[in-house]
């Protein structure tokens, strides 16, 4: 691809562009052409044929302007060089104005072939046949070549390539071919059977676009490219399929210029059509051509453009189409006995195919390491390098020996209070060194820890305590919500025990921790993860990431989020130094960046959205980071956000690894190193399974999905958790014995697709998949299109059930607009990209997307959608700014204006930041808005402590007064 530096000449007078303004670019003249190769009767020389032509022109049977080109071929007819020439001649499009071309190939051995090629406007297939017969002397005198009627154009744009094809847009125009069959089909029903099989395949591949292109030569109207819609879903009885196909064929609509050419199409030839080439260039990006053979079978050929299909996807597709065609073409009872089979019953794959796909999701064998407990593994590190720094925060630093000793001492005190094997101990503490000591101490007693964020609402803390049946909670909260039989103890009270330390329990299968997750439905549930899983996670990553004693890690995340498991034990089990990041620092990208610089952190774990803020800070600063590894987790990574980062930090100095994971499978599942190559490709891949982990993609019935076809991600292997605590039904539903692999697997509820090479694309949550007016829609897909809009900084799409009646179901979209954005513009761009049924019914600008504690969209806090189209004119600009500043503007007004610009025009001085949907990102934005208003930088901590505009204004007034008093600027 070339980059244009200066603009192309405009179509001004005298320019070449003006000269050729009338010559439209026609990239695919061959698509509208068809051809015929006919061997001439023996002894018929080129001269004789020319005489025939003259006579036919004389009589008016053939047009006077038809020319006959004679090509003397240096080789005999059967020579490969002649064959190459023949193919070349028959695939040569006519010139742009579309005529009929007749070429005689006169071979060295006297054999003569007639090659006819015509634009469909110049001759239809019957016309080609007639010209061939006239020149061969096989027509009767009354036949005349007539111009075909008004034929549709075949130059319309292609439909979007199928998502399951995994094609590479950079390979546009590169074609491949795969053979299919032979398959037995009764000849008179070939077209409906092939159509039915193709539609069935698209349904099973869950393609959004089910239109099949068709060029059926055995139909009366054999020159018309048709677009056929044949509705098939999983419940369609197979017996009805062919009949439906017959009906659909009868009402097929011709492909016209205003309708894109379907991405997938079939061409059905008839037996009389030897030598006929219905197209010279793929009529559809994915084209099946079926040729009847004398023995009653059909052989198929899949021709494809690599922009639409990955070659491996093409091989797979050819196999599946072959199978489905045989199945649909056979009498139904042959394949299914006396059941009435429906489309969903059809098995796409053979056992070998399935086994190969399962192997793809199991890339390397699990490394052999004896299973161990977390605290035993820690004890080994402590014994190896007792004097090395293990843990620090702003005020304190502990060596491995000191940490071990402190935890051992505390474990005795905990044991005294009942902690021990088989028990669960709650830990509800802010992030500091004590937290880590406490977690290790709990493990040393043989108990499992149940982390709780002290910032959670009281209700949530009480719920967790009760649900987990906790008896003992270590907490720094003064008032831990009281519950019957629960002892809350301050960690400070656990230091002075003189009791004997309990003998270390060392059962790798015992639970190490219970972390609560909330699904999109239902109450939070505790995931019980055994020690051996943490060991397996370290075995899977240590070598690849070269984790070791020189590394400095951060503990950035709440202990109630399992990313912290990776941070704490990833560091301490590989001998690194864990720097605890206090809560306030973790909320401020500036302060956190300063900490990374100062503590020379080498291994950083971040969610992509937190990293985005950090990146912005870093790019505006000169200080260099010691980072050598960044691990992304917790939410989908949009690699495009890393482009600027790579300009500053080359990927060979600091490696970026994207990991998809789930609490139920021990933090991580897959790993994918992101380099500028992935960024340029806009890759959505989360990579391959970790060694020891396995993954596969399944349909609703648990069957393995073909490559490229979306389905539910199943995770098996070393990371699968024990169970949901006290939830046997839910456990049975999600942690299943996989009959296909014989192992235990976790059904993630996440949607994914497997790519060649075993790489996984993560496509969002299955709950995100909704049905609107019969269309299956991925909300995530719409959201991603929203976010592609440069004027949109955040967005959410939700399903609105209306008043219960199916017609009222609609999609509502919410966007946070950048100052330059407008709802109308965003909507216009959505319309350009999305099919009609995916364009949300309403689009509403909001100051921020409210999130739940777990970082998911909080639907309850979203406002009523704006009614359309009145709202289309609304913009995200702060209306307060338009009102004009009052003459005597006080600090309170300025602060309120910044609040309104960030959180919405209705905000009052006493509205609480968090009630308004405030979160850390909005806090950063608010802080920026305050700076723009000319206020001094407001630490984020102040925003959290003064959560209303009025209180913040008061606080700032007090601060200004204090500073004036001390004479500071």
């Amino acid at each position, binding site marked *: 691809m070339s980059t244009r530096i200066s603009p192309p000449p405009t179509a001004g007078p005298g320019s*070449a*562009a003006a000269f*050729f303004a009338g010559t439209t670019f*026609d990239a695919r003249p061959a698509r509208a052409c068809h051809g015929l190769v006919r061997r001439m009767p023996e002894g018929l020389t080129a001269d004789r044929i020319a005489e025939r032509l003259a006579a036919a022109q004389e009589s008016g049977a053939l047009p006077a302007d038809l020319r006959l080109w004679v*090509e003397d071929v*240096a080789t005999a007819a059967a020579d490969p060089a002649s064959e190459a020439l023949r193919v*070349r001649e028959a695939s040569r499009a*006519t010139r742009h104005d579309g005529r009929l071309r007749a070429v005689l190939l006169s071979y060295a051995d006297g054999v003569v072939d007639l090659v006819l090629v015509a634009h469909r406007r110049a001759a239809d297939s019957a016309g080609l046949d007639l010209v061939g017969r006239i020149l061969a002397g096989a027509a009767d005198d009354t036949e005349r070549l007539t111009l075909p009627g008004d034929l549709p154009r075949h130059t319309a744009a292609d439909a979007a390539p199928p998502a399951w094809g995994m094609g590479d847009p950079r390979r546009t125009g590169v074609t491949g071919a795969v053979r299919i069959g032979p398959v037995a089909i009764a000849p008179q029903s070939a077209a409906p059977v092939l159509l039915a099989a193709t539609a069935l395949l698209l349904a099973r591949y869950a393609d959004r676009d089910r239109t099949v292109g068709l060029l059926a030569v055995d139909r009366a109207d054999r020159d018309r490219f048709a677009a056929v819609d044949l509705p098939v879903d999983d419940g369609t009885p197979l017996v009805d399929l062919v009949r439906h196909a017959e009906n659909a064929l009868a009402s097929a609509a011709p492909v016209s210029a205003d309708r894109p050419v379907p991405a997938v199409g079939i061409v059905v030839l008839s037996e009389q059509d030897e030598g006929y080439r219905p197209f010279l260039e793929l009529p559809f990006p994915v084209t099946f051509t079926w040729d009847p053979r004398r023995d009653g079978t059909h052989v198929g050929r899949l021709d494809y453009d690599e922009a639409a299909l990955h070659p491996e996807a093409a091989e797979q597709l050819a196999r599946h189409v072959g199978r489905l065609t045989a199945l649909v073409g056979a009498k139904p009872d042959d394949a299914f006995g006396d059941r009435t089979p429906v489309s969903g019953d059809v098995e796409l794959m053979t056992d070998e195919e399935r086994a190969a796909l399962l192997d793809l999701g199991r890339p390397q064998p699990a490394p052999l390491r004896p299973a161990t407990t977390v605290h035993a593994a820690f004890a080994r590190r402590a014994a190896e390098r007792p004097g090395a720094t293990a843990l620090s925060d702003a005020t304190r630093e502990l060596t491995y020996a000191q940490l071990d000793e402190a935890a051992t001492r505390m474990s005795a005190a905990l044991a005294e209070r009942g902690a021990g094997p088989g028990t669960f101990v709650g830990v509800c503490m802010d992030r500091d060194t004590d937290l880590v000591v406490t977690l290790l101490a709990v493990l040393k007693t043989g108990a499992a820890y149940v982390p709780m964020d002290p910032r959670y609402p009281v209700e949530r803390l009480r719920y967790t305590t009760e649900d987990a049946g906790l008896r003992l909670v270590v907490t720094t909260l003064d008032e831990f919500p009281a519950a019957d039989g629960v002892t809350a103890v301050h960690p400070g009270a656990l230091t002075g025990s003189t009791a004997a330390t309990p003998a270390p329990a060392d059962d790798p299968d015992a639970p190490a921790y219970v972390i609560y997750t909330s699904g999109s439905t239902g109450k939070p549930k505790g995931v019980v993860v055994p020690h051996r899983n943490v060991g397996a996670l370290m075995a899977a990553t240590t070598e690849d990431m070269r984790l070791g004693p020189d590394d400095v890690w951060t503990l950035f995340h709440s202990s109630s989020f399992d990313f912290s498991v990776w941070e704490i034990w990833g560091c301490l089990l590989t001998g690194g130094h864990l720097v605890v990041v206090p809560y306030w620092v973790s909320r401020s990208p500036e302060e956190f960046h300063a900490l990374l610089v100062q503590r020379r952190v080498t291994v950083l774990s971040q969610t992509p959205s937190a990293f985005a803020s950090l990146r912005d800070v870093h790019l505006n600063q000169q200080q260099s980071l010691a980072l050598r590894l960044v691990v992304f987790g917790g939410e989908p990574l949009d690699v495009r956000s890393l482009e600027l980062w790579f300009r500053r930090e080359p990927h060979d100095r600091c490696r970026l690894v994207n990991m998809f994971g789930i609490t139920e499978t021990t933090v991580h599942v897959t790993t994918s190193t992101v380099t500028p190559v992935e960024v340029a490709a806009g890759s959505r891949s989360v990579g391959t399974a970790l060694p020891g982990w396995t993954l596969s993609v399944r349909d609703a019935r648990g069957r393995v999905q073909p490559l490229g076809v979306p389905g539910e991600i199943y995770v098996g292997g070393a990371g699968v958790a024990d169970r949901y605590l006290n939830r046997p039904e839910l456990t049975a539903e999600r942690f299943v014995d996989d009959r296909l692999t014989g192992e235990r697997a976790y059904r993630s509820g996440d949607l994914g697709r497997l790519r060649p090479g075993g790489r996984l694309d993560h496509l969002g949550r299955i709950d995100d998949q909704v049905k609107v007016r019969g269309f299956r829609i991925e909300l995530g897909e719409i959201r991603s299109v929203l976010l592609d809009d440069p004027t949109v900084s955040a967005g959410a799409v939700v399903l609105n059930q209306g008043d219960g009646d199916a017609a009222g179901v609609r999609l509502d979209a919410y966007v946070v607009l950048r100052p330059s954005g407008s709802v109308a513009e965003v909507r216009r761009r959505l319309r350009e990209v999305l099919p009609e049924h995916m364009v949300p019914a309403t689009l509403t600008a909001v100051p921020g997307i409210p999130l739940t504690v777990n970082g998911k969209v909080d639907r309850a806090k979203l406002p009523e959608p704006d009614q359309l189209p009145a709202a289309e004119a609304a913009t995200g600009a702060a209306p307060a700014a338009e009102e004009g500043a009052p003459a005597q503007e006080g600090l309170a007004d300025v602060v309120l204006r910044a609040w309104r610009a960030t959180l919405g025009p209705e905000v009052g001085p006493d509205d609480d930041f968090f009630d308004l949907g405030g979160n850390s990102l909005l806090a950063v934005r608010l802080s920026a808005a305050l700076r723009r208003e000319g206020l001094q930088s407001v630490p984020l901590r102040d925003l959290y402590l003064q959560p209303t505009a009025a209180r913040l204004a008061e606080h700032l007034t007090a601060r200004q007064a204090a500073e004036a008093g001390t004479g500071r600027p």
Partner: protein
Amino acid sequence: MRLSQKTALVTGAARGLGRACALRFAEEGADLVLLDVAADIADVPYPLGTPDQLEATARLCRERGASVLAARADVRQQKDVDAVVADALDRFGRIDVLVNNAGIAAPSGKAVHEITEDEWGVMLDVDLSGAWRTIKAVVPSMAKQRSGSIVNISSTAGLVGYRYFAGYVAAKHGLIGLTRAAALDYAALQIRVNALCPGQVREEPTLEGRMLSEVARSLGVAPEDQETAFLESQPMNALVNPEDVSSAALWLASDDARQVTGSVVTVDGGFSTR
């Protein structure tokens, strides 16, 4: 095969460098349109190509697997050139490459003031205006395709002066100017236009070329002496071979040169750098 699925039109294809290019293109998979006057021209004091030579080039191309359309036309006649191009589009559907090779080396051998109106006229008409006419004829179809490569065979005489060859030198200089201007006119349409400047080319019997001997004759020397005289001024101490020229033409014609337009490629063993 660097020109597979492409059609190339070569002018002056009956013999010499035109034939060399045609054969080379055929080997690389191209189909060929061969254009030549295949007749003598008044005022040109030596025999030009013949119908037999044109037919021989066609046969040699077919032996290399090409389909061929051979046509007689004089590049001095726009309507003759147009007719060949129209036939070529009927026959092959498209023209991807045009090599403007037809050219004459004489009448020459006179100082500027001695050249007659007719001598001057025929030289510019063939060597410069001929290329302009074929470009006019092929460009509309190339514009529709949004692709095309035009190679103008100029000469070292397009870069430096030669004594007693003013008409030839002026025409070949002019051809480079035409190349540069056309490159700009058509860049936006993805049509590339380049000039190729061969030095003195060795005469190879199978190609039946006449240029070297005609230059020698115009100067009144024996061809062997002319060759020796040239060798002495060649930094690489060898005359250019026809395949050196056809290789360069192939490169300019092919997609390998997709970013090359308006350039002047010399294949002269270093002659013009002295």
